């Protein structure tokens, strides 16, 4: 059974974020965790960067997911690390250091989630670094029902007009957006609790979040409408939930 994962919390939002250097006016550090993946943080310098988040002394949450969107870190050396003493002596790689091979979306996941106070991503010195989002989260996994098959489509942003001569012309006004309608199966009450816990991070469904879809693609999305819970048994032993998702650009 294929599964999807929802990453609904970004620890940068509730933690204290520190980034080396001073960003350009209008491109602040807050852009790194505003869930708007087309709005950039950037700095017109040539220097190494550390993106550090401190979750605080209490209330730390688990992390097993890093996403970095719309960056220009191609060929740069990068690290994803955690620490218990703000990287004084406790410096631990969450994943193996890597050299970024392109400017595409960066996704790193942990097989086992870690609950640590300090997390950081490092970037080797480069000219004019920029990226739109750094998202460190915990993924909630759910089973997808194929007896009620997913409905998969794209929402086009192209206007078509017919001419007097009978031809049609198009004006592409933007990229397609993925639209996914899933029915997920929660066959234990704890899974329903997890789902509801995941939803709690969406501020009444007002925020986008990451999904790992049934094809293992990661993308930012939001709900179209609110999830509809369909209890199949008493006491929520089995529940199906219909969720309609649309991609955020």
């Amino acid at each position, binding site marked *: 059974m294929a599964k999807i994962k929802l990453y609904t919390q970004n620890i940068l939002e509730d933690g204290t974020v520190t980034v080396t250097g001073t960003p350009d006016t209008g491109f602040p550090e807050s852009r790194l965790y505003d869930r708007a993946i087309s709005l950039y943080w*950037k700095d017109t310098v040539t220097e190494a960067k550390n993106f550090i988040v401190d979750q605080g002394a209490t209330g730390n949450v688990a992390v097993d997911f890093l996403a970095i969107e719309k960056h220009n870190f191609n060929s740069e050396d990068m690290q994803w690390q955690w620490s218990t003493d703000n990287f004084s002596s406790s410096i631990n790689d969450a994943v193996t250091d890597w050299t970024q091979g392109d400017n595409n979306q960066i996704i790193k996941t942990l097989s086992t989630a870690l609950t640590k106070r300090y997390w950081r991503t490092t970037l080797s010195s480069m000219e004019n670094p920029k990226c739109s989002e750094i998202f460190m989260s915990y993924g909630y996994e759910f089973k997808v029902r194929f007896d009620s098959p997913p409905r998969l489509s794209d929402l086009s942003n192209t206007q078509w007009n017919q001419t007097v001569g009978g031809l049609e012309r198009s004006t592409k006004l933007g990229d397609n957006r993925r639209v996914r309608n899933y029915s997920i199966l929660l066959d234990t009450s704890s899974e329903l609790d997890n789902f509801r816990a995941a939803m709690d991070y969406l501020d009444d469904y007002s925020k986008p979040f990451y999904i790992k879809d049934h094809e293992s693609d990661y993308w930012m999305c939001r709900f179209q409408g609110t999830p509809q819970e369909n209890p199949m048994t008493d006491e929520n032993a089995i529940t199906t939930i219909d969720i309609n998702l649309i991609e955020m650009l």
Partner: protein
Amino acid sequence: MAKTLSAFTTTKIDSPFVDIVRVVNMEFSGITLNLCDRIWGDAGSECVFNGTLYEPLIVSWDEIRSGRINPVTYEVEPSSAGFSVLNSVSVGGADTFAKLFALYNPHFVTITISEFHVGASAAEDLEDIFKGNTEDFPEMTTDIVSVTCSGFELSITNKFAHDMVDATTYPDADPDDLGKMLPQAYGQAKRVPFMAVDAGWMTSLAQNLTAGVTGNVDFTDVSGMPSSGTIQIDAEQMTYGSKSDANNTLNISAREQNGTDDVDHDLGATVAEIQSDYFYIIGHAVKAFDSVYVEDAQGNQVLQPSGNYTAYTGQSGDEHGSYPGKACIKFTVLPILTKQINVTLSDTKDVDDAITVTDNIAYSSAGANKEIYPNATNATRGDVTNPAYAYDGNESSKCDVGLSDMCSWVFPSTNYGTIATQYLWILIETSGTIHVMDSNNVALGTINSATPQWFRFTKSGGAWSLGIRVDGAVNAVSADVFEIKKIVEYTPTLTKTGGASRGGAATIIGAVTLTGNSVADTVIGGRVSADLQAFQDDGSGTYTGTPNALIERPDHILKHIIIDRCGLTVSEIDSTTYTAAGAFYNTNSYVLAFAILQKPNSRILINEVARQAKSIEAWESGVHKLIHIPDVETTDKSLDGHRIDLEQIFTKYTDRADIKNTFSARYNRHWDGYSNDEEADRDVVTSTNSISVTKYGTLQGDSLSFPHIPGSTQAQAVLDLTKSDLRFPRLGVDFSGGHYLTDLERGDIIEFSNVTVNEGDTPTHLFDALLGLVEMDLHQFRIIDKIYAQDAIKLETIRLNPLYRKNIEGKYNILLQKIIEGKYNIIAPDDWGDGDDWGDSDDWSIG
């Protein structure tokens, strides 16, 4: 001519499938935002074009309007645009877009909206479609902020650089000129008024002032007069030693100064302060002065001999020190016009009087004979007693005239008429022969009568007072005179009483001829004006291409207005259309000559200049285009049915009320009236279209004024264009299409063309969509509006009336051109140009 696009864009718009990005550049004072309406680009360079990162915060667009050109008046509406910005994310260093407004003034932010096709990378691939300023924010919520923008051209409306005559800068200015703009002029402008910036105080006499009177005299306003000095009233100069601003009086100390005559002056007479110099200026330096004038009492500008003044062009080396950079006229004597009475009246008038008088007057006559009596003696000698007894009416009483003595009596002098004869009677008794004379001692005769008897003496003529004298000295006699009288024969003086009335008529014949100078008048400090060669190019020839040349060609004038006067740059001038227009003006010798007397609306001024140069003007994305209108237009683009959207064609005619066929226009203005006065235009041209008159009857157009045009040929050409536009109703076609229309702009010329979808199809799609009113590949249409929607470009067009004007004038036309080009063959030539109903049911056969 259609806009030249980059090769990349040209290729892209030819495709019916476009992938377009629209971006907006917002230049706040202190920060620039680059926003876009979508995501594009490869990983690592998403939303980056030509090195600029754009943020996709534009939620929606309003229609972007280029600004409609009125097909009748050619006035241009300002362009406008609008868009909505996401207001829930941080931007520009503020938490939200709206919060930027607390940091930066959101009004008058420069806005540039541009488009490019995905895949473009070069700067020239970015097509600006709007440039302007933020105007308003009609909707501001936590989600979005709506921004409306007005075109760049609106912001130049009030940018025309000018100086005013104010009391701070020019404390000695004529009060009548305070608050006025220092005039500016282009070309060979005539009678440009100069402002009296230092011409002494002017006021008026507030009382009658008799010759010779001194002391306190009332004036209307003496606040600007020095505490003492010399003034001139009419032609007389006088000095004063003190003044009272509170009472508006000057204490006149001496009259008839500086060789002037002491005369009476009337209340209201003009009073001028006498200075050593008088200065009159306009707002800028000029190339040259041609003539200088001073206005007389009738408002006529009187040419001044060159010795009366000194003129400074204001150019370097020819400036007056007090007025650098400004054309200046200096008089050392107050400019006064005194018209003397050197008038000869030649009067050959006569009166042919046919009046009759009906006289009802009655005569009263004193009679032909009158008896009168003495009333005094005028001389006596010796012993004469009781001389009055001689005229007491008592013939018994007597006057004794002693021995050898004399007495003379006279009569009243009352005149009753002309005396013919008078008979002098005397009743007398004598002691011997006594001599009798008249009272003037002229002998009348003698008497010797021992008893009282009447004697008569006759005297011809004489006075009414003439009396009688008796003198006894010759014969030593005495006499007793009892009574004296005289009877006068005379022609009486008549006295009329009663009334008389006149009847009939009198006729004046002959003529009165006035020779010599005009009536007497004196004008002090009348308006000074000059014929100028006005604005001059700089030493680099920035505006004309020739250093220091006179700026008079329309394109040069517009360039100067936009750059020099409105403070824009050469980048805001479209060199392509300006160059083409300049060549057209050169060929046709088009120039303009005018003055700007009041703070102009720059947009209106620019439009008027273009109009009077037979041209259209429009701002395209902040760049000014000047589109001349030749006699024969060249089609810029031909559109077939594949380029025009289905059910998006709308046809209409111009209003019937706009049909006109008989016109007149005034031109060649004299500018000294300091107002937009059509009466100051000196010449007139007329134009009539006989075919339209035959069709619709005479329809008089409004009287037009082309005050900027100095010559008749140009005025006629502009008027003929108006006639051509209005003589028939014109077909308008509005339609929309894709980005294939990107390169078309207002003023461009298009045609419609049929295209077959399938081989063998009857190509009627577009013809039918145009209701059969448009001849394919023949009728030309001018674009008068362009609107950018997000997925379409909308054009409003107006047909050139019809085909073009040259057919009517019997010269040539577009159709003929096409025939010559081999596009058509004439199968059956028509008697064309002779009352043919072009564009409707023509008799032509064309193959």
